[in-house]
């Protein structure tokens, strides 16, 4: 029951991200979507990922988005409507893709969930696997963060206007 409520919230907020006019409203809908998806993670017994999702996505990335949107002072923009035929074609192709994915999932028929262990999502077990089996990607991701930070600062730096000496 809770699954259907969370799914309805997630899907409707995701649609709200795409269809809303104001960019700030889109960000708010996206934050609600992240909360709904974190609720799904908790339902699937992945507590660490749920909390990390909220902290990283809804806490840091969306705040960054809001800062950039406020910096640019975007109003609700007026989109030129593409032709009705193109919109209808888009809806039909999206619906067909959805039907194909649904049929593939029904044909695949996943095996029933064995109740092997319910504490995979606990942070101790995840940490054990992370620091033994995936230690190299973990260290490389720290280098990735460092390079992303340096790149963002270098890209965002204001260029100083050089004093052009005209040689007079």
């Amino acid at each position, binding site marked *: 029951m809770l699954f259907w409520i969370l799914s309805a919230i997630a899907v409707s907020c995701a649609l709200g991200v795409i269809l809303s006019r104001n960019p700030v409203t889109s960000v708010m809908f996206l934050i609600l979507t992240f909360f709904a998806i974190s609720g799904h993670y908790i339902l699937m017994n992945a507590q660490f990922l749920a909390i990390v999702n909220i902290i990283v996505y809804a806490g840091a*990335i969306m705040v960054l988005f809001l800062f950039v949107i406020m910096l640019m002072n975007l109003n609700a923009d007026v989109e030129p409507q593409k032709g009705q035929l193109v919109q209808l074609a888009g809806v039909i192709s999206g619906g067909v893709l959805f039907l194909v994915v649904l049929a593939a999932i029904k044909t695949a028929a996943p095996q029933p969930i064995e109740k092997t262990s319910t504490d995979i999502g606990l942070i101790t077990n995840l940490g054990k696997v992370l620091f033994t089996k995936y230690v190299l990607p973990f260290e490389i991701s720290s280098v990735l963060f460092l390079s992303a930070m340096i790149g963002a600062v270098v890209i965002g730096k204001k260029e100083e206007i050089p004093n052009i000496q005209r040689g007079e």
Partner: protein
Amino acid sequence: MRRNAIIIFMCIELMLNAVNLLLVAFSKIYADADAQLFVFFIMVVAAAEVAVGLAIIVMMYRKVHSVDINILNRLKH
């Protein structure tokens, strides 16, 4: 269909979250912890990509004063 570069960025984040949800569901079915760690790394990459991408958008906005992708598309000319 949306012209705003920031909205497109948010839709990319939405797609990454959809993949995360799928991976966590698979981790639940097959009782494997590796999928949840992969989700963790996807979040790492998404955070780094948001930082760099927003820096690029802010720099473009300083030059062109618009975030319309049709305008940003013509930068190569």
